[in-house]
């Protein structure tokens, strides 16, 4: 499936272009940002669509074949890689395509809707995309750590960019925890490196397979424990969900759309790496399932008792992250397909909801459910779109959420875990209840006071186009899930064949 090129042209561009754009817009600060940022986002989107599959060995160092002691640049011949290896395969293709689509809308929306001096903010959006692209493409333990590290720092920046006291607090708390989980991941990598001597993940796994671990399994277990720590942190799983949901709620909704895409990508990427590295140890999958179930339930219960629509969505994002990790934790073919597919669907329908939430800012920015605002009368389109988003999020056909949840439920039943299947159903239903509470108060209920201004609000066309595109994507994937599944299935087969 993946062709044997070790110098695929598109991989460095997907990392370097966002970085250079970030540097330029950060320097320009408030002048001429719009054309540069938008054109660069479009270029990234095009690259992510047209790129072929392959590898990139940064700095151009070959692999060493341990038997013949010869160097080779051919990735098909086995060898211990001297270079830093990135992979662009089907999984990366679909994931990076969706994140770059969200990046494009995010950038346009922030250039339209925000006050000036937005250079640093747009720089952070591009860097956020860069970090998620690195996380999903990288095949190197050490580089993974750096990507998680820079990713969490950028999340802090995006949360702090709105400058309110809530967002500052959220950013500071999340930033403090990055010290713990980043150091944890570093300890984990140190242990794996000490055990195998290879920072390339495939090489490390090959070494473990070849020579076994024997009595050194203690070391691998502790490495797994620290790895889980960073997984919980990067994806916002329980018990770090209060901090992550705070970050989601305190950022601007379009920023949250990109943030949640990044965290889903991190969950998938780190989850697959954990499955590959530690999958053969007993109790590893059980730990991953345990964390997912707790996250699913706590997230959705916390969403029920929120009084702000942004916070409801924030907790639902957390809760649905549990689906993704549950699928990966099951470790079976159906489970993995369901988990990764759920990540794709989740990014799409949560983006619909978040863009609708962004529209609320144009109606005065009130997202609390304490008062009724009767938005449906002012903008029937946004109300309809939010309800469609809620339906998609609750896994009702013909939207995309249904397709992945049914795969996950089947995977659980096949594994002999009907309780988890019941929990998935419960979470889906409760998602609908939680969202409908907010939707009813904000969109449908007539206001108690009649003296509210009824002036017409012009929503940016890009926002409407964005919502429509993501709803169409949701319906298309809901009807023809093969569009996405054909990217995911080969990857899953490859992961499980190792």
């Amino acid at each position: 499936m993946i062709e044997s090129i070790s110098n695929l042209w598109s991989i460095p561009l997907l990392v370097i272009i966002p970085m250079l754009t970030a540097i330029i817009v950060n320097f320009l600060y408030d002048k001429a940002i719009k054309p540069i940022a938008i054109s660069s986002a479009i270029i990234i989107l095009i690259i992510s669509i047209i790129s072929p599959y392959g590898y990139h060995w940064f700095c151009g160092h070959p692999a060493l074949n341990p038997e013949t002691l010869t160097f080779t640049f051919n990735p098909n011949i086995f060898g211990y890689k001297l270079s830093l290896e990135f992979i662009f395969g089907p999984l990366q293709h679909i994931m990076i395509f969706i994140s770059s689509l969200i990046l494009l809308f995010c950038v346009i929306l922030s250039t339209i809707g925000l006050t000036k001096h937005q250079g640093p903010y747009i720089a952070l959006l591009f860097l956020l995309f860069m970090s998620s692209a690195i996380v999903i493409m990288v095949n190197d333990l050490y580089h993974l750590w750096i990507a998680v590290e820079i990713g969490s720092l950028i999340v802090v920046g995006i949360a702090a960019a709105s400058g309110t006291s809530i967002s500052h607090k959220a950013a500071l708390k999340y930033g403090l925890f990055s010290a713990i989980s980043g150091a944890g991941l570093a300890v984990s990598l140190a242990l794996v490196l000490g055990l195998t001597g290879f920072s390339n993940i495939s090489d490390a796994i090959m070494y473990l397979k070849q020579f076994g671990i024997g009595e050194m399994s203690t070391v691998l277990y502790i490495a797994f424990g620290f790895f889980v720590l960073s997984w919980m942190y990067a994806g916002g799983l329980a018990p770090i969900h209060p901090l992550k949901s705070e970050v989601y709620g305190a950022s601007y909704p379009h920023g949250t759309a990109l943030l949640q895409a990044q965290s889903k990508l991190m969950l998938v990427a780190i989850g697959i790496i954990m499955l590959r590295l530690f999958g053969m140890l007993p109790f590893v999958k059980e730990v991953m399932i345990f964390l997912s179930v707790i996250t699913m339930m706590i997230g959705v219960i916390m969403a029920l008792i929120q009084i702000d629509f942004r916070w409801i969505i924030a907790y639902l994002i957390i809760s649905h992250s549990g689906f993704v990790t549950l699928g990966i934790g099951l470790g079976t073919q159906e489970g993995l397909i369901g988990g990764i597919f759920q990540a794709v669907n989740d990014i799409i329908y949560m983006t619909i909801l978040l863009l609708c939430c962004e529209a609320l800012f144009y109606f005065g920015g009130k997202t609390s459910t304490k008062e009724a605002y009767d938005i449906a009368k002012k903008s029937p389109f946004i109300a309809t779109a939010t309800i469609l988003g809620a339906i998609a999020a609750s896994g009702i056909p013909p939207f995309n959420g249904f397709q992945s949840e049914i795969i996950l439920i089947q995977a659980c039943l096949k594994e002999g875990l009907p309780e988890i299947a019941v929990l998935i159903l419960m979470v889906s239903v409760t998602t609908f209840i939680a969202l409908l509470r907010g939707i009813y108060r904000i969109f449908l209920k007539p206001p108690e006071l009649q003296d509210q201004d009824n002036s017409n609000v012009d929503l940016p066309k890009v926002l409407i186009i964005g919502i429509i595109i993501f709803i169409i994507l949701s319906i298309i994937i809901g009807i023809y899930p093969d569009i996405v599944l054909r990217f995911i299935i080969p990857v899953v087969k490859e992961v499980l064949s190792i």
Partner: protein
Amino acid sequence: MTSTETFYEKLKKWLDNFITGSGYTNITTGYITGELQFLVFIIILSVFFRLFSVPLAIILLIFITAFALYFAPVIKDVEKENMNDLNRVLYWMVIYFAIIIAITLWGG
């Protein structure tokens, strides 16, 4: 007569527990749904022990249900434990981490 009254009063007291400060009806509905969800959640989790032994799961199921109903409403405590307070998150993280390490190291 008296028994219905006490039941009504009990129910009213139970509902009052949810409301702190100014009670908005939609918050109350959220809390009650959350409470029931949490109850069902721990019941289902207790069923999980059937993987070890079925009688154990039945006993646990009965006990946990009884405890949860006795201590109801627990949703306020759940909310408190899930606050964004830094020390609380740190505490729970240490507990989770220790459980993960204990299970993987000495469970296998």
